[in-house]
Structure formats: structure tokens, C-alpha cells
């Protein structure tokens, strides 16, 4: 919240603020969840199917702790909040929308456009787009963290994780994952993102860059800032597409949006996850199944 004089504490004889308490406040791995409703399941139950990915996200720190020691990037756009929610777990659009960023990586010699495209399209044990129960979702790719971690510090960092977690867990931790906790919380490699609907066609997004406790990541914020934030070389191109899509959804003659990519090859695994190729729309289908369930208060078949 932007600081203002209105945010100063009220004084009372007891020193208490006398604010109404949120009915449910619980934490998991340092993330605080407040529920303003008296209804709803306990946090452990709510997070049961997404917890493993929150754990892997936290274990990127050699000490298992992620902190938010710095300020916030805030951006807004004249479009619906669900554009941002869909986008974070979408593995299909990158080659087109982020062509500009791929050109920058090619210019600097970091990676060729062909390499980037190959990474996006690879089929492997850890290259998936998943729709989870509760409307949660994730996009995962095997060799992530590029662009959010100083490549010079990478070998030392991997060794730290290896010492702490062992080879299997290290591989799990460095897998690139964008994790959506429905409806509006994202855990990204470099930051926590909170999507705030302001109006049906206006959205604020708070991006909180993270620090991995114990990792020497001097260049990490710089790399993060290169792609994310309102004046960066990545995120604004996504936002432009949201805004174009917002123009499109006004078209009454075409009332449906199609999210069928990979529908035929989607499989449900033993964890109840709808698993697709990393460029499929399995996550978006999970998001909208839950959205419809909540908006209509009627059970929708999984």
C-alpha cells in the first residue's frame, strides 16, 4: 500500500488498533493467507495439491527461504484481470509475443532465437502445462531460471543447491515454474505477483521481486528488471496483447473465446492434475472450470 499519513496507527488507551480481525489467517512457508470470509476450507486443505510446487519454489534458496527485502514494481492496464491470470501459465504465445526479447538475447550472444524456440517446444519429463485442482495451474520447463539469474554465478549456485538438497531435489528446484494459486497469486522464478482487479476493464498488478536467502544473486534483480516491469523489454509486450484482446472481447458478434489447444492429448494423472504439453491450454481450462464453478455455484465435472 502506498504510504500516506492516513496509514498512521490510530491511538487508543490500550495501544491496540481495534481493527476487525480477519476470520482466518494462516501461513505456509512464510506466505501469509488471510481469508475475510467465515467460510472456506483450512489452508492446508486448500493448498494440498499445489503445496509441492510452493515447496520447490522455496527450495530454490539454498536455505529454503525466500524473502521480499526490496520494493515493488506496480503496473496497470486497461483490460480484464483474467488476461494476466491466463498469461502467466501460457507456454504457447512466447515465440510471437516475445520476439523482441529473443532478438535482444541473440544480439547479446546469450541465446539464439532457435535455442529459445526449441526450449519452449521440447517434450520432456518436466516440460508441461498443468491444470491443478482448485483452479490452480502451472507451467514448467526443465532448464529455467535463464534471464532471472546471473549466468556467471550459476555454477556456484547449482553447487550450493546440490550440497543442500542432493541431485534429484536440486533438479526439481531449478525447474522453471510459474505457479498460479487461484485466483490471483503467482509465484514466478524471480518474484511474487498479485493481480488486483480494479474494474472489469482495469487491472493493477503488484510484482514483488524475491531474494533467495543464501544465494549470491547480485545480478538477479537486474535480470528480473530486464524482462518484468512497466518499462522492461518483456512484460509490456504481454500487456499490449492483453489490451488488444480487451478490444476483441468487445466484439459481440463473436461471444466465445476458444481454449481448446491440446484438449485431445490432455491426461489426468494420479494427483488429479490435467497435464498437457507445455504449449497446451490445460492450465487455462482449469482456471475457467473453477471460475465458472465459483461464479455459478454449481458443480462442474472435473
Amino acid at each position, binding site marked *: 500500500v*502506498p504510504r500516506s499519513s492516513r496509514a498512521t496507527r490510530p491511538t487508543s488507551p490500550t495501544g491496540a488498533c481495534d481493527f476487525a480481525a480477519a476470520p482466518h489467517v494462516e501461513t505456509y512457508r512464510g506466505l501469509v493467507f488471510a481469508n475475510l470470509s467465515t467460510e472456506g476450507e483450512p489452508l492446508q486443505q486448500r493448498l494440498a495439491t499445489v503445496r509441492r510446487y510452493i515447496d520447490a519454489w522455496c527450495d530454490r534458496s539454498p536455505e529454503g527461504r525466500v524473502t521480499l*527485502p*526490496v*520494493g*515493488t*514494481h*506496480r*503496473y*496497470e*492496464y*486497461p*483490460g480484464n484481470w483474467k488476461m494476466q491470470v491466463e498469461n502467466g501459465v501460457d507456454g504457447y504465445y512466447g515465440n510471437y*509475443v516475445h*520476439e*523482441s526479447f529473443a*532478438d*535482444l538475447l541473440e*544480439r*547479446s550472444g546469450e541465446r539464439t532465437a532457435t535455442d529459445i524456440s526449441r526450449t519452449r517446444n521440447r517434450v520432456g519429463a518436466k516440460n508441461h502445462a498443468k491444470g491443478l485442482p482448485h483452479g490452480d495451474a502451472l507451467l514448467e520447463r526443465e532448464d529455467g531460471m535463464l534471464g532471472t539469474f546471473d549466468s556467471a554465478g550459476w555454477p556456484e549456485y547449482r553447487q550450493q543447491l546440490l550440497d543442500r538438497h542432493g541431485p534429484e531435489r536440486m533438479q526439481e528446484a531449478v525447474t522453471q515454474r510459474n505457479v498460479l494459486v487461484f485466483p490471483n497469486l503467482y509465484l514466478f522464478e524471480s518474484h511474487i505477483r498479485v493481480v488486483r482487479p480494479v474494474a472489469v*476493464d482495469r487491472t*493493477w*498488478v503488484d*510484482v514483488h*521481486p524475491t531474494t533467495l536467502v543464501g544465494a549470491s544473486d547480485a545480478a538477479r*534483480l*537486474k535480470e*528480473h*528488471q*530486464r524482462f518484468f*516491469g*512497466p*518499462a522492461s*523489454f518483456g512484460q*509490456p*509486450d504481454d*500487456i*499490449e*496483447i492483453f*489490451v*488488444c484482446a*480487451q*478490444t476483441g472481447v*468487445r466484439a459481440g458478434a463473436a461471444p466465445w473465446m476458444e481454449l481448446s489447444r491440446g484438449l485431445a492429448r490432455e491426461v489426468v494423472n494420479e494427483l488429479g492434475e490435467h497435464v498437457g504439453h507445455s504449449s497446451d491450454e490445460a492450465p487455462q481450462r482449469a482456471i475457467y472450470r473453477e471460475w465458472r464453478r465459483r461464479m455459478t455455484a454449481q458443480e462442474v465435472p472435473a
Partner: protein
Amino acid sequence: MMSASAAPDRLAARLAVQDLLHLEARLLDDRRFDEWLDLFTGDASYRLPISDVDDPHEPALIADDRAGMEERVFRLTRTLAHAQNPPSRTEHDVTNVEVRELEDGLVEVLCHQTVHELRVGDPFSVGLAEPRLLAARCRYLVVPGEPWRIRSKTCRLLAREYPVYNLTFLF
């Protein structure tokens, strides 16, 4: 009291700074970004901080060193950056210019800048045909010479800690 010889020097410095700032504004508004880069020294920086302290560990809207500035111009001039398709039309206004000569030979410039921005297009397209006005207080460090060059440019937006819609033109 100012000595008799200092006044003409101060006037010359002020005129040189004003010429430089006006040239910068014109190059930006004409989208001559490669020439804009040439106004800066090889060790230049270009920053739009969010916090009030200049801390490299704090997120900033822009925290470019010279290489970052070159990458920014490359993106604007030689890649398909959707956020600049169609491109921003801008008008940079520079006011409240104060010039102070520092002991190390550099010149500190404080000024206000307002940028009018518009992306031209169909008014039914969200985000187009909507003029914006962004105001900032700016501080430059300038190196006198032939020509005068900019060592650093730091602009603090009036609304810097609030959500910002794409800011993909050069401020």
C-alpha cells in the same frame, strides 16, 4: 557577490545546458534514438527510480547503464516490440532549469520534464488515441566540452510508486 568574470561563464554554461536539453527533447520526439544515444558519455546511466533513495538493490522502472541504454534503443529501432506498435508520439517539455557547476568539473542540472504521449490509432482500439501526461523531476550530470555530453540522467516520476501503464517510449 559574483565576480565580474564569473557571470559570462555562468551564462555560457546555462546556454550550453539549455541547448543540450532542447536537442535531447527534439531527438526523442523525432524518434532519432541512435542520435539520442550519442548525447551520452560511454559510462552513462539512465534511471527512472521508484524509491526516493538511489539504491541499486531497489527495483526501478529503468536502471540502465550504457549497455542497457543501447539495448533499449535496439529494441525500439530494430525489433518488433508490440508495446510500441503503433509507436508512441511524444512531446518533451523542459522547464525550471537550474545549472550548478560542481568542483570536479561536471555540471549538475536540475529541471522538470513533462512528456505528452499518444499512440495514434483507431479510437475503438483500447489503449490507442488516449493522450497521457507524465511529469517528473530530473537531475542530469553533464560533462562540458565540444560537444557537451550527458554522464547521467535520473528522472523521478510524480506518480512513481503507483501502478504505471506501459512506459516503453524513452522518457
